[in-house]
C-alpha cells in the first residue's frame, strides 16, 4: 500500500518545524535545556529578587558551566562509540 503524499502547506510546515528543531535542539538537547534554565534563574535573580550583581555574575558563569558539561558529555558519548 502506498502512503499518500502530504499537501504542500503541510510539507512546508513540517520542513519549517524540522529546521527550527535541528537549529535549536538537534544533537545538543542539553544546551537547549541549559539555556532555558539559565534564562529562568537569571530572571529570578534580577526581576524577582532584584539582585543585579548576582544576575550579572551568574549569567556568564552558568553559560560557561553549560558549555563545559555539554563538551564533557560529548566526549563521554564519543568514547563509548
Amino acid at each position, binding site marked *: 500500500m502506498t502512503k499518500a503524499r502530504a499537501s504542500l502547506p503541510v510539507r512546508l510546515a513540517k520542513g519549517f518545524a524540522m529546521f527550527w528543531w535541528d537549529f535549536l535542539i538537534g544533537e*545538543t538537547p542539553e544546551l537547549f535545556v541549559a539555556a532555558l534554565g539559565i534564562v529562568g534563574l537569571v530572571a529570578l535573580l534580577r*526581576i524577582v529578587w532584584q539582585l543585579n550583581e548576582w544576575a550579572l555574575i551568574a549569567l556568564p558563569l552558568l553559560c560557561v558551566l553549560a558549555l*563545559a558539561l555539554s563538551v564533557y558529555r560529548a566526549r563521554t558519548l564519543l568514547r563509548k562509540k
Partner: protein
Amino acid sequence: MLGVSVSSGAFVLVLAVFLASSVEMVEALTIVLAVGHTRGWRTSLYGVASAFATLVVLVVLVGPALVRVPIATLHLVIGFILLIFGMQWLRKAILRSSNLKAKHDEDEIYRATVVELESSDSRGRLDRVGFVVAYKGVFLEGLEVVIIVITLGTSAHRVDLAAGAAGVAVLLVAVLGVIVAKQLNRVPENALKMSVGIMLTSYGTYWAGEGLHVHFPGGDVWLLILVGIYVVTTWSLVLTLRRGDEVLATQRVQ
C-alpha cells in the same frame, strides 16, 4: 582627532556577521561547485538564484514585523537563540580542536555530493536533482546567515551594518570560490567556527541579559569582557581535553 567613534559593539557585530556568513557561504559554495561540475552550471546557477530570491522574500516579510515587537522581548528571544546557536558552534569547534571529532572536510563533502549526483539519473533541459541540491544547499546555509543578520542587526539597531558585512562576505567567498574552485579545504574553517561561536555566545549572553533587565556597567564594553571570558573558557577546555586524551593514551601503552 578623526571624529569617528567605533564602538566595541559595532566592531564585534561586523566581525561576527562577516565570519559567520563566510563559514556558511563556504559550505554552500562547496555544494554549488559540486552541482555545477556534475550536472551543469545552468542548473547550479538556477538553484542559487532561486534560493537567493526565496531568502529575499523571507527577509522582506519577516524584517518589518520584528520592529513591532517590544525591545526587551526581542532582546530576550534573540539572546536565547544566539546563546544556543553560539554554544553549539563552540562545542563543535572545541571537540574538533581536541581531535575528538573529525574536522569538517570540504573536499569530502564535495566528493560525496558528486557521487550522490552521479548516481541519480534525471538529466534534462533543467536537471531537477541538481537544481534541488543547489537550491537546498544555498537556502539552508543562507537561512542561517539571514537569522544571524536579523538577530544581531535588530538587537544592535544596525541591520544595515550587519547586512553590509554579510553581503561583503558572500561576495568575497563567491569571488574566492571562482578563483580557488576545488581548494576549499584550505579555508581554516574550524578556527573561523570557533571565533564565530565565541562572538555569538557573547552576543547571546549580552542580549539575554538586556532582555532580563540586567544592568551591564559600562554598556556594550561588556561584550569585550564576555568575549574574553569565552576565549579563556574555550582555550582551557581544548587544553584539558587534549591533556586528558594524552594521559589516557599513555595509560593504554603502559
